[in-house]
């Protein structure tokens, strides 16, 4: 019964994708490639890209900046979130700064970083970092603030070591909050890094997209877009599986 429900759902999802591709094929016959290339043209460009070393170099630059940005924001966001969760005084001090950073749109940060960092790299990582730090900060702080007081009282009463309290009370408590923060951050971070590369430049998929756009090479823009979407989906899929296993 469960298998047939899953199969039906899979068939419906595949059906919607087929309808979309058919619609795209029909629409593309009415327009030149520069406006709307057909899926066949896009797929052939995509395979050409995969065989080009420039593709892999751009791909790894983006992935590397993305990973460094995520890790740095996870680290600082979590540290600040823990500090703010444990101390009201620190919360009063840190929260307005993070709220301010969060309220500035990533595109503004992109323009600032062009001025501050130039095009010599580091800007993309900084943009990811300031965009994602608030996500980790608020989630971790919420997790700490919602730690069951009754368990902390047990620890206090029995004079349980700080190490045990962190490992057995705070860590299991924080885990779901960190998981959801990571999922949001990966989705948002992946889109932000490409956007920042597109605006700031200095290599990466974003810059490849920008070049293709400048040369009106729409099939290449489509091919990169498909790659970006697939990588984004794959990252979320594997992260979700990884997090499920860790529970």
């Amino acid at each position: 019964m469960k298998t047939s429900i899953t199969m039906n759902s899979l068939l419906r999802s595949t059906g919607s994708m087929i309808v979309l591709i058919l619609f795209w094929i029909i629409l593309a016959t009415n327009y030149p490639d520069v406006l709307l290339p057909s899926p066949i043209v896009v797929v052939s460009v995509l395979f050409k890209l995969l065989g080009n070393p420039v593709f892999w170099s751009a791909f790894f630059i983006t992935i590397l900046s993305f990973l460094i940005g995520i890790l740095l924001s996870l680290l600082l966001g979590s540290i600040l979130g823990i500090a703010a969760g444990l101390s009201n005084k620190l919360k009063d001090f840190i929260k307005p700064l993070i709220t301010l950073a969060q309220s500035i749109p990533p595109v503004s940060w992109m323009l600032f970083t062009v001025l501050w960092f130039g095009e010599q790299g580091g800007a993309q990582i900084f943009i990811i970092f300031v965009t994602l730090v608030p996500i980790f900060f608020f989630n971790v702080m919420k997790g700490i603030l919602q730690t069951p007081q009754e368990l902390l009282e047990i620890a206090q009463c029995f004079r349980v070591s700080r190490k045990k309290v962190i490992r057995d009370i705070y860590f299991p408590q924080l885990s779901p909050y960190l998981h959801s923060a990571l999922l949001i951050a990966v989705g948002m971070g992946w889109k932000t890094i490409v956007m920042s590369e597109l605006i700031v430049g200095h290599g990466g998929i974003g810059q490849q997209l920008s070049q293709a756009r400048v040369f009106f090479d729409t099939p290449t823009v489509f091919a990169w877009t498909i790659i970006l979407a697939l990588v984004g989906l794959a990252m979320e899929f594997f992260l979700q599986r990884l997090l499920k296993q860790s529970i």
Partner: protein
Amino acid sequence: MLILENLSFSRNQKEIFKQFQLQIAPQTVTCILGSSGIGKTTLLRLIAKFISPDSGLISSPTGSLGYVFQEPRLLPSLTVFENIAWVSETVDVERINQLLKIAGLYHNKAHYPHQLSGGMKQRVSLIRAMVNQPALLLMDEPFQSLDVRLKKEMLQLVHTLWLDYQPTVLLVTHDLHEALFLGQRILIFGNSPTQILGDFTKQSSAFHPNDCLKMKELLSES
């Protein structure tokens, strides 16, 4: 000796204790009875230093403290054994196993809290409170959510464990029968700010019948 001297404590502008005095002899079981909201739990929380008094002095016996709360408060991610070992200063596997056997939980030691019944969880919480052989054991209505049969079993278990090394026990309860069974001294709290309305001590093996009558009278009044 547990000594409370000139203890004052207010909450939401309501005076709960004012210049409150109490002395508890070591290695005795003292039961506190009184109506809800009179300050029984607050007194235990003050002694455990979860909250600070506005003024006054609390002098507790040296050594570790044990606390059995109204609810078991077990860590959901740890097994029965791990929950007990978690509060142990040095994990004495033999002692934990021995306590688990006394409580009839030895075969459940690898179970997680969600796999236990309410009574079992409360027994784990009791063993956890006693694993370090605390000089002072605070118990806050630990049997209130249990049915009559489980309550009887728990009372017997507390008595058995107490005989092990005889810690100073302060038990807050609503149930006079519990107090009569376990207590060597029974205090009845009343009024506002809280005062000790009755202070009764067990004579040899039981409380004097007149004292029992007086206790019932005070409890119905408070």
